[in-house]
């Protein structure tokens, strides 16, 4: 009995498989996916991973540098102006930012998708009105509207999450409306309708699963924008308020200590940057895979 050569060099099949794998899943995409997974795990297991609570103060050890810059080994990324451990605060801040961004993106996706279905179902005046709102929303920077609403209503967490949720709804509404209009004329929808299915059945059981992939891609494109909106607003002092913390709030508070303790601002900034970067890379890759017309670009 002959044995297949086990060395990778001599095995054309294995090397072809590897090359195909590398082509399909570029290292950059895999690294980004790993980073996203790490961020999610950190957010889920914040209590287990954080050495301290994010409000625990150690006033004897204020503004200590990270351990690799000669700080105490107890706080390996240093402490802030109240002697709070930066590692612990980063972990909790990541959790707050990620949870708020997921909630915000999900709310926007739900509202936008629903309005898209409504526009495509009722047509006529309803569609005109919804599309007019979409155009109006798309022509204005959302940060401006968000700041105006916060100025008028004052700041609280529920309102802040709702505002983040409204962000980006117009993309889902526009996409959903277009796809539902075209799906309605396709054979499967016509057939199910002829069998007597209610519009709700057709939309939820047949059309929604068919257009879900595009909506999921839109979700990954919208998610980093929501993170950036949350961190921008918290950075400006209008989002998450102390004692709660988010990555943007940490960065904004760290600005005051740039000269003496730059790491307080730079560390959360790096986490924001790497997170949005990874999601953008994975989102682009997903879009290319789902949209064959873009594959040649």
């Amino acid at each position, binding site marked *: 009995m002959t044995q297949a050569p086990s060395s990778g060099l001599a095995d054309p099949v294995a090397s072809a498989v590897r090359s195909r794998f590398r082509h399909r899943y570029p290292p950059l995409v895999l690294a980004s996916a790993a980073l996203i997974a790490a961020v999610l795990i950190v957010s889920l297991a914040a209590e287990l991973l954080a050495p301290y609570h994010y409000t625990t103060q150690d006033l004897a050890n204020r503004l200590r540098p990270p351990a690799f810059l000669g700080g105490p080994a107890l706080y390996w990324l240093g402490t802030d102006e109240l002697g709070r451990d930066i590692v612990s605060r980063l972990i909790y801040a990541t959790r707050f930012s990620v949870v708020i961004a997921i909630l915000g993106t999900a709310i926007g996706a739900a509202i936008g998708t629903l309005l898209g279905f409504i526009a495509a179902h009722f047509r006529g005046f309803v569609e005109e009105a919804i599309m007019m709102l979409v155009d109006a929303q798309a022509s204005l*920077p959302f*940060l*401006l509207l968000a700041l105006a609403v916060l100025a008028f209503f004052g700041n609280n967490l529920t309102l802040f999450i709702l505002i983040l949720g409204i962000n980006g709804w117009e993309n889902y509404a526009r996409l959903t409306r277009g796809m539902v209009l075209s799906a309605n004329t396709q054979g499967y929808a016509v057939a199910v309708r002829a069998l007597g299915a209610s519009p709700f059945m057709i939309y939820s059981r047949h059309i929604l699963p068919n257009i879900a992939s595009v909506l999921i891609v839109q979700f990954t494109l919208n998610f980093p924008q929501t993170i950036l909106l949350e961190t921008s607003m918290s950075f400006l002092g209008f989002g998450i308020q102390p004692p709660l913390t988010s990555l943007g709030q940490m960065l904004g508070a760290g600005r005051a200590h740039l000269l003496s303790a730059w790491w307080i601002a730079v560390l959360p900034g790096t986490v924001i940057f790497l997170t949005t970067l990874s999601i953008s890379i994975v989102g682009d890759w997903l879009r290319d895979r789902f949209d064959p017309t873009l594959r040649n670009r």
Partner: protein
Amino acid sequence: MNARFVAIKIGRALVTMWLVTTFAFLILRLSGDPIEILLGDQAEPEVIDHYRALYGLDRPLHEQYFKYFAGIASGDFGFSLVDERPVLTVIAEAVPATLQLGLTALLVSVAIGIPLGIVAALNRNKPIDRFVMIFAVFGFSIPNFFLGILLILLFSLWLRVLPSSGMGTLWHLVMPAITLGTAASGSLARFTRSSMLDVLNKLYMRTAAAKGVPRLRRIQWHALPNAAIPVVTVLGFRLGDLVAGSIVTETVFAWPGVGRLLVTSVSGRDLAMVQGILLMTAFTMVIANLLVDLAYGWIDPRIRASTAQG
């Protein structure tokens, strides 16, 4: 056909402006009594009544709405309750700073983004293309408040070569303009690249190559003008990102423009001011979008031709 196109575009712009104005009115009224917010709980009832009558807040809601609308239409955006000057005057003072920063940032993004996009498209799938694309993703993934802080840290605090805040010399402009321009240059590079690739794959490019037009000439006279059309359009629509970015960038660098004015007005709850900035910015953007829409038909000869026929 053409007149109808223009009429629809103008109609939509007007509707958007009306929606924003109504939105501003509604949030102002839904949010409670602006006079109580301003004067606090301890104010005498007579004082509150006096101010209420002064600002017309004792009238019925629909009357206030029409009065408010008429005011906006005649350019009366009310008084800043903090500054005690007309809102429009205060905004007008901040506009030059914002324009200076915004236009410089636009220049930076065009000067970096478009050449990079062209180079990437011409060297598709080569290392330089990959490098440009990675730069582009970096550019629009880095939050501008973080980039601004990194620049301040590096050039103001460590190297001590650039001023960290304020306005005055050209040196003050360098870091804010780079901060604001980087994100736009990233997305512009990507868009230019894909627009160029579209054109390079066109049949007329192959025809030009077949009849022996030199490569440089083909790129300069056949590809670039055609690729420029969508790029110019998208440049107009990027205005919104620039406005949103300037709110944050002006705050980071203490740049005395409209963005920073908005942030200080939101902090100080100067509602008339916030409302004025919201409306002025929205109107400016709607009009800019309208002009881009109309200019599109003017730049693109194909649209002109089809209009002439119809």
